[in-house]
C-alpha cells in the first residue's frame, strides 16, 4: 500500500488506500488527541486546531476548518508561522476494505468554495 505523489506547480498531492472506514479516518483527522498521534501535537482552537511543531523544530500551525462534510471532505486553512496561508484538503472515498485518501496541500492562495466560484479565503499578509 503505497501513496502516489503528484504535483503541479503549486500543490503537493498524495493519495492512497487506508485500511479503515471513512468515519474512522475522519476522527483521526479531526479529534485533537488523535491528530496529535500522527500529525503534530494538537489542541482545539477556535473551531479548528492549533498544531505545535516546536518539538520537531517546526513552526506553530494554525489550522482553521474551511469546509467540513463528514466523513468525506475536510478542508483546512493551513497557516504555519512564517509562511503564507495554504490549504490542506482531505478527500475520503469509501472503497472495499477501507478508504481512499487524497490529500492536497496547495500553495494556491485563493481557495474556492466547492459550491461556486466565490473565494472564501484569501490569505492575508
Amino acid at each position, binding site marked *: *500500500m503505497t*501513496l502516489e*505523489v503528484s*504535483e503541479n*506547480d*503549486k*500543490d*503537493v498531492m*498524495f493519495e*492512497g488506500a*487506508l*485500511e*479503515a*472506514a471513512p468515519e*474512522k*479516518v475522519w*476522527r*483521526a483527522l479531526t479529534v485533537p488527541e*488523535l491528530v496529535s*498521534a*500522527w*500529525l503534530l501535537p494538537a489542541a482545539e482552537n477556535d473551531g479548528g486546531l492549533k498544531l505545535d511543531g516546536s518539538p520537531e523544530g517546526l513552526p506553530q500551525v494554525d489550522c482553521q476548518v474551511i469546509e467540513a462534510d463528514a466523513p468525506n471532505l475536510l478542508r483546512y486553512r493551513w497557516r504555519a508561522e512564517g*509562511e*503564507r496561508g*495554504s490549504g490542506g484538503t482531505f478527500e475520503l472515498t469509501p472503497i472495499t476494505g477501507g478508504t481512499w*485518501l487524497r*490529500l492536497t*496541500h496547495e*500553495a494556491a*492562495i*485563493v481557495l474556492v468554495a466547492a459550491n461556486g466560484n466565490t473565494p472564501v479565503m*484569501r*490569505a492575508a*499578509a
Partner: protein
Amino acid sequence: MNEAEVFRALADPTRRAVFERLAGGGQNATQLREGFAISPPAMSQHLAVLREAGLVAEQRVGRHVNYSVRPEGLAPLAEWMDRYRAFWPGRIEKLKDLLKEMDQ
C-alpha cells in the same frame, strides 16, 4: 524577496496570468496588455508587484520596456513545495499506524 512576497504576488489571478504569459517569452507592456481587459495603469501596477517580488525583470529597449520572467524568483515556492513533499509521507505512515490502533 521572500516567500510571503512571492505568494502575495501570485495570489492575484490576473498577476498569475501575466506571469504565466511572460513565462512563454518576454514582452513589452503594450504586447502584454493584449488579451487582458485591464487599463495600462493597472497593468503597470501588477508588473510592479511582480517585479518587487523578484518574479519579473524589466529591461529598457529603445522606447519600450521589456518584461521577462526571472525563473529563480520561483525558488521560494519550490522550497515550500519541497518542505511539504518531505513532510507529509512520514505523517501519513503514522496515520496508518494510528488507524490500526484505534477502536472502530
